[in-house]
């Protein structure tokens, strides 16, 4: 492990987090129907991007170390940009407010669409898009 890889992850993580924060402010919290659209938009776009870029960078999904692109962009920016914790917090808030099916639909739906988006991104890159 090189110190430079960690530094790249740090900067990428900071940048990705700032991007996430900016998008969050654009959506100004929950939107129509109390749905946290900012979390959804951030996570789904990030999922598509990681699928696409991982194939583009020819990275095995379980091997993330060693190059600028992997450290800075995949682990750093996309890891900092997307957020699992916020999605869980959104779900917990819905759950505590009594919206159990809403909470379940939100989190399962977001994960399902995210998996599909990542797959779509990967396939697009594979197809040479």
């Amino acid at each position, binding site marked *: *492990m090189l110190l430079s*890889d*960690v530094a790249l*992850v*740090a*900067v*990428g*993580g*900071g*940048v*990705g*987090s*700032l991007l*996430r*924060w900016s998008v*969050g402010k654009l959506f100004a919290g929950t939107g129509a129907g109390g749905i946290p659209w900012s979390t959804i938009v951030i*996570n789904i776009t*990030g*999922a598509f*991007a*990681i*699928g696409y870029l*991982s194939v583009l960078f020819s990275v095995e*999904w*379980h091997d*993330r*170390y060693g190059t600028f692109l992997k*450290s800075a962009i*995949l*682990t*750093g920016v*996309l*890891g*900092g*940009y*997307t*957020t*699992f*914790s*916020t*999605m*869980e*917090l959104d*779900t*917990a808030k819905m*759950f*505590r407010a009594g919206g159990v099916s809403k909470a379940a639909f939100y*989190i*399962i739906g*977001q*994960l399902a669409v*995210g*998996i*599909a*988006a*990542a*797959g779509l991104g*990967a396939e697009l890159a594979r197809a040479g898009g």
Partner: protein
Amino acid sequence: MRAIALVFVGGAVGAVIRELLMLGVPTARDGFVGSIFIANIVAAFILGVVTGLHSRKVIGTNGNLLLGTGLTGGMSTFSSLVYATFVLLAGSAADFRVGLLYVGANLVVGFMLVLAGLKIGEAIGGKNLPG
């Protein structure tokens, strides 16, 4: 300006913690990515605590930006989770099962921990409810 610095620093530290976990925790032979699982559930717990504390005014906006938006947002990752799950689901029958287990474990344990974190943060803050 300070908000930008807080989110950046928190996010950078969170991402580095996740990276160190990725270096230190090997992916299981069956494909379950333990490092990301740990990063995600720990971040979910911390976000619960931070949110609970913030709701009781134990920490303010700056603390929330640094530790919530920054640290837990940087430490946790949705993209890595769903891409790894996709690859597993698209693999063999055994891979498919691990994929379901992997995403399910993140979801369920993360949910339990964020709830626990909220309760703990609120309990620490006590009755200091926002006016």
